């Protein structure tokens, strides 16, 4: 028995040793950093089957190899998992040095609490960045006069259809809401799901119908609670609800992840797909010939062809990295790499994503769907920012998603939706322009 106990304690000791080793590594790592190698801890979300992974992951690795004096310690949390991961690390006062994230809508609290630094001076004094970014690309990271991140991914909402299914069932391609409704009914009659959608798609539709009647200034004045939502939002909400009630969306769409909803489209069970452009990279290339981008149907006579587009993803450094001159320099280099022309070119050519940069690329190499999306953007009468990507205050996001879900499920009426939206926005107005 004694031997057994000895053995057990031996194993225990060993295990403890392994655990401690993990600790020591990180400690010694930091020590080395003070000599000549700078260690950067990076957190990003582009891993696994995320369409951006084939460009983002090699970009980080390449940077690591190119810079002998900088060592990257890369952590990933796929897709939306990064939200909680970053929150946890921020709460533990242990933020990564460099991280990717959405705009102000999800970093407002960090900016307010001073854990993300204002980098506008760095941007201004760095000539490499002159004219690199599209107009307005910094919008979502501009907060009360400061700029807090570098943009690397653009977004636009696009409507993709499966032409073959439209032809097969003799359905006309809709250009306005009434025609869309007709198409939806025709498709449900033959047992197809009209939209390969989840609750996000439905919300995007609502936002688009609303935006078709607005200007950027209008959108801002609602978000800052200068103006109250009224008739326009009501009409948009009624349309989204009506589609939901007509069975335009798949069963269980509330629980579908976006990537899963795309699979329904791939499986030819649905002829239409309205989504955020990050999904373009996931579209099955074998079926590209049947797919086509069409302008989003107009809500009514007063509506104008509109595409919701802008910049959605940014790379940030933490205040802690900023405070350390060596780390600041290294982090800045990394940020410029990720938000730089090479990655941007890769985004457009390799993974069919919108970029936030003015880059040259070879149209031949671009995914035809993305080309059509870019054409659609050119043809649209206006390009407006999407509320949920750019303009709503952080606190609104958390409440407005479930509220829209409640509308779509029929728990509240469109009028109640408008009223509650006004309550939410007036409680948390957007203050980034102050």
């Amino acid at each position, binding site marked *: *028995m*004694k031997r057994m*106990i000895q053995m*057990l*304690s031996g*194993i*225990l000791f060993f*295990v*403890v040793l*392994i*655990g*401690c080793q*993990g*600790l020591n590594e990180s400690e010694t790592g930091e020590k080395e950093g003070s000599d000549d190698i700078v260690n950067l801890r990076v957190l990003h979300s582009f*891993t*696994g*089957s*995320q369409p951006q992974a084939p460009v983002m992951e090699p970009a980080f690795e390449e940077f690591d190899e190119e810079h002998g004096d900088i060592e990257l310690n890369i*952590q*990933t*949390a*796929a*897709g*939306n*998992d990064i939200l*909680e*991961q970053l929150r*946890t*690390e921020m*709460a*533990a*006062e*242990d933020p990564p040095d460099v991280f990717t994230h959405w705009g102000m809508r999800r970093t407002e609290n960090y900016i307010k609490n001073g854990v993300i630094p204002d980098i506008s001076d760095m941007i201004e004094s760095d000539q490499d960045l002159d004219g690199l970014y599209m107009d307005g690309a910094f919008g979502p990271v501009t907060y009360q006069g400061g700029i807090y991140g570098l943009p690397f991914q653009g977004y636009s909402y696009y409507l993709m259809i499966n032409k073959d299914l439209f032809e097969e069932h003799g359905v006309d391609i809709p250009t306005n809401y009434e025609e869309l409704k007709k198409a939806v009914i025709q498709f449900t009659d033959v047992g197809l799901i009209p939209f390969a959608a989840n609750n996000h798609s439905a919300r995007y539709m609502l936002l688009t119908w609303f935006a078709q009647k607005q200007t950027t200034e209008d959108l801002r004045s609602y978000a800052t609670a200068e103006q109250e939502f009224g008739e326009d939002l009501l009409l948009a909400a009624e349309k989204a609800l009506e589609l939901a009630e007509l069975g335009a969306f798949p069963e269980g769409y509330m629980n579908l*992840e976006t*990537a*899963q909803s*795309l*699979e*329904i489209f*791939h*499986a030819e*069970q649905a002829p239409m797909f309205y989504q955020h452009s990050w999904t373009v990279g*996931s579209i099955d290339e074998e079926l590209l010939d049947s797919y086509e981008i069409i302008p989003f149907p107009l809500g009514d006579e007063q509506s104008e062809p509109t595409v919701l587009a802008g910049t959605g993803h940014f790379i940030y450094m933490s205040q802690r990295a900023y405070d350390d001159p060596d780390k600041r320099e290294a982090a800045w280099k990394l940020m410029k790499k990720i938000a730089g022309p090479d990655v941007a070119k890769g985004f457009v050519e390799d993974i069919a994503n919108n970029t936030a940069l003015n880059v040259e690329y070879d149209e031949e190499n671009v995914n035809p769907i993305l080309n059509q999306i870019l054409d659609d953007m050119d043809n649209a009468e206006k390009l407006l920012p999407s509320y949920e990507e750019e303009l709503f205050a952080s606190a609104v996001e958390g409440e407005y998603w479930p509220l829209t879900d409640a509308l779509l499920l029929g728990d509240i009426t469109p009028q109640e939706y408008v009223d509650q939206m006004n309550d939410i926005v007036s409680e948390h107005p957007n203050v980034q322009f102050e």
Partner: protein
Amino acid sequence: MGKVFSNFVSPLKYLFIWGYFSLTFGLFIWVLITSFKSNREIFSNPFGLPESFNIDNYIFALFDVNMVMYLLNSLIVAVATVLLCFVLGSTVSYALSRFEFKGNTFLYLLFIIGLTIPLQSLIYPMFFKMHTLGLRDTIFGIIIVYTALNLPKTVFLLVGFMKGIPKEMEEAAIIDGCNYWNVFSKVVIPMSKPVLATVGILVFIAAWNEYIFATVLISSDVTKTLPLGLASFQSSHLSEYGLIAAGVIISIIPVLIAYILFQEQIIKGMASGAVKG
């Protein structure tokens, strides 16, 4: 009358036990079959067999996603938690069960109160504590947390059992010139083997399957345990259903093998542990 009733009950009985069996067994088989399919096959024919038994999903899950590493991490965590629980639990249980001293009952109750607390409600303080100690996101940290969480159960079971060991054995040993340490290691521990097995199994399964604390405490890939690894595998491959099914199967197989090898002890252990717990 009794006979008639029994004749009527009998088919129902078999329907029930085999019905429940096929539900449970069928589910596993279905996930297994799905794991060989492509998305297109899954959508077009949910019940059918795959066109070919393609093991690409398994190869990808095992080697590209480090499922093996998650498995190893879980193994280290579970084994170390069990051992720590043994060491910490058996000593204090020996003292509590074999000695009479002031505060004995109070101490015992202190441990027992832990049984009634829904452990998941301790995530916040545990998170900040591990952070302050620099143990967040380390294997060692997660072992400490799991040990703390399983300690009340361990002490409760061990004290209950040790109280039943006849005092005479111990007294004889002391007369033979053994000190307390010897009594503990040569008499009490060997006699407690059955309950140690129970505790070991309960703690192992709890640590092996724990998910909530792991999500909060672990962030880097190299420290992920199997449940967490499986969950993040799912969120990075949301729409690749066959692949996820393969991940599920891979995560089940090691425990399944261990279970089939030790099923008698496991079932007995779970039963007696739970009955006393």
